[in-house]
């Protein structure tokens, strides 16, 4: 039984080790030993090629921008909405909540088709803000659900104390609710950051300007460019640049990440 586990584990890890190993050797050496031997001399040129010629530096920066903006946006928007759906009263409250829930349950396989036509008509196609808003929308339903259920279970004491002290709604939210919601925010951040970072289809549809593309679409572009098609080690270097940050963050925080993502998935 243990051999089975170890075999599968090695098969999972090995491609990545092979990837890093091959990216450190020149293409000619790679072609002769298939990446299975250690490099004669460690070469960083592939990374340089991927970063500059392959534009991976730009793609990487774009991904960071989009992930940061989208996640901050989702946390703010969803916590506001979750708080109001949980603790504040207004007409249509139930209807709106069920609307968000329904959006989670209904699969929309071709969601990007009308989005493309409409964004093109408005002129938000191929813009950073259009993509960020679309990304916020993608994570909205789940995040609102997470926040609302969290707030439902939150004791009202601190909130009532703040209200007695004369805070208005917004200040209660900013100074009391948001700090208390740290566990929920952690899940929301992890889940959405991963989703935005790995997102591919919407970015593919929305962006035609290479300089605005996030990492995943950029990788696809790089892989089909002349450099990527012939220089295998440069491509692997590019893949390493793209995956190493995720791997490192994952290894450090994997317990939280797994908890966060499965919490998100089980809700669905």
């Amino acid at each position, binding site marked *: 039984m*243990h051999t*089975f*586990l170890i075999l*599968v*584990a090695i098969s*999972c890890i090995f*491609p*990545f080790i*092979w990837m890093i190993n091959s990216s450190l050797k020149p293409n000619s050496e790679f*072609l002769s030993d*298939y*990446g299975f031997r250690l490099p004669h001399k460690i070469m960083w040129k592939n990374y340089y090629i991927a970063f500059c010629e392959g534009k991976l530096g730009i793609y990487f920066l774009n991904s960071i921008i989009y992930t940061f903006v989208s996640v901050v946006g989702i946390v*703010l*928007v969803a916590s*506001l909405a979750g*708080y*109001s759906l949980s603790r*504040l*009263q*207004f007409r249509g409250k139930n209807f709106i909540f069920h609307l*968000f829930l329904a*959006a989670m349950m*209904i*699969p*929309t*396989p*071709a*969601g*990007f*088709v*009308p*989005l*493309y*036509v*409409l964004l*093109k*008509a408005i002129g938000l196609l191929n813009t950073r803000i259009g993509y960020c808003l679309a990304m916020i*929308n993608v994570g*909205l*339903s789940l995040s609102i659900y997470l926040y609302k259920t969290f707030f439902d279970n939150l004791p009202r004491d601190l909130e009532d104390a703040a209200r007695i002290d004369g805070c208005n709604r917004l200040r209660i939210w900013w100074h009391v609710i948001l700090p208390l919601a740290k566990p929920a925010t952690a899940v929301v951040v992890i889940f959405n950051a991963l989703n935005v970072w*790995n997102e*591919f*289809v919407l970015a*593919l*549809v929305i962006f035609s300007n290479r300089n605005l593309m996030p990492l*995943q679409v950029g*990788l*696809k572009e790089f*892989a089909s460019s002349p450099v990527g098609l012939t220089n*295998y080690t440069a491509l692997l270097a590019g*893949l390493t640049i793209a*995956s190493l940050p995720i*791997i490192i963050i*994952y*290894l450090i925080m994997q*317990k939280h990440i*797994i908890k966060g993502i*499965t919490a998100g*998935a089980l809700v*669905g």
Partner: protein
Amino acid sequence: MRYSLKEEIKNFSFVLPALSIFFFFYIIPFIYTFFLALHQGSGLSSLKFVGLENFKRILSPQGTAIIVIFIGGILVVFSFWFKKKIKNRFLKIVKTASIIMGIICIIYGIKELGEVLSSGWVIDKEWWASVGRSFYITLWALTFQNFLAFALALCVDKAIRTGYIYRAIFFLLPVISEIIFGLLIRSLLLPYPGVLAHFLKKLGLENLVRDWLNDPRYALTTLAFVHCWRGFGWGFVILLAGLQTIPQTLYEAARIDGAGAWQRFIKITLPLMLPVIVLVVILTILGTVQVIGLPMVLTRGGPAGKTTVSVLRIYNDLKNYHAGYASCEGIVLGIILITLSFTLIKISNRLKKV
């Protein structure tokens, strides 16, 4: 406690940002999909109204007519069922409207069917082939991927000390985006430089070597395998979590009563894991049918379109300025998926009662 209108507006303003984004990026596109499906062309200016033409191409004219009759029938039956609940005027209007629309649908459908019954049966075979490919991959996912996940979860469940290491390793793959993983495996699988082929030759398994990505016979199965390999981490984590909620005392009691390992599995593990298994099945189906990133980078739609799965087909149609038709395909696929998940949930509810 009645709130004043001013209070209510202030409360509502908290949900306003979320609602606006949701409205513009989900509700409007959702409604627009149906609008688009009745048009051809792409871009707001070049749309041409064609009625049910797109549906006729996907479902064949006869099929469309039959479905229209069916929808009409459902509307009429549904509105009569509604009879008991007419409390306010709004519902009364809805009921009358649906009866009228139902009858119109039935009449239109029968008329269409009459016109079309004698002509040949034309259907978009490529589209349904692509749907079939999506479901082929899903079949592999339901069997290979989930069996592997379950087997690994069972093993790791017993290995308490080192379990978390395996969990971390196995969940790494789904965390890596499908693009990165796809390009990495593609580098291994390509016939030139032929890394995997070389590896197999060294192991003496030369007869296993194929042109995995470019041979029309193997490309789709290769894609399915790569997808399963990447995806088993998901099922693994969820199944493991489920397994770890089963109290050990049940197993102890069974062992004392003399039950063997296989019996313990069938009588204790499986029944208690049923809800989790159903959840994993539904998630697998919904997730795998809509896969698009992996096919795009692994095989680019494959040798002669042999790996063009359903959503990839929709994307290609969009790129070729057939947005209306792409919307229509999306609607058909969405309805298939909704029906499937609905049925599965109903079945699982019935199983739960047993």
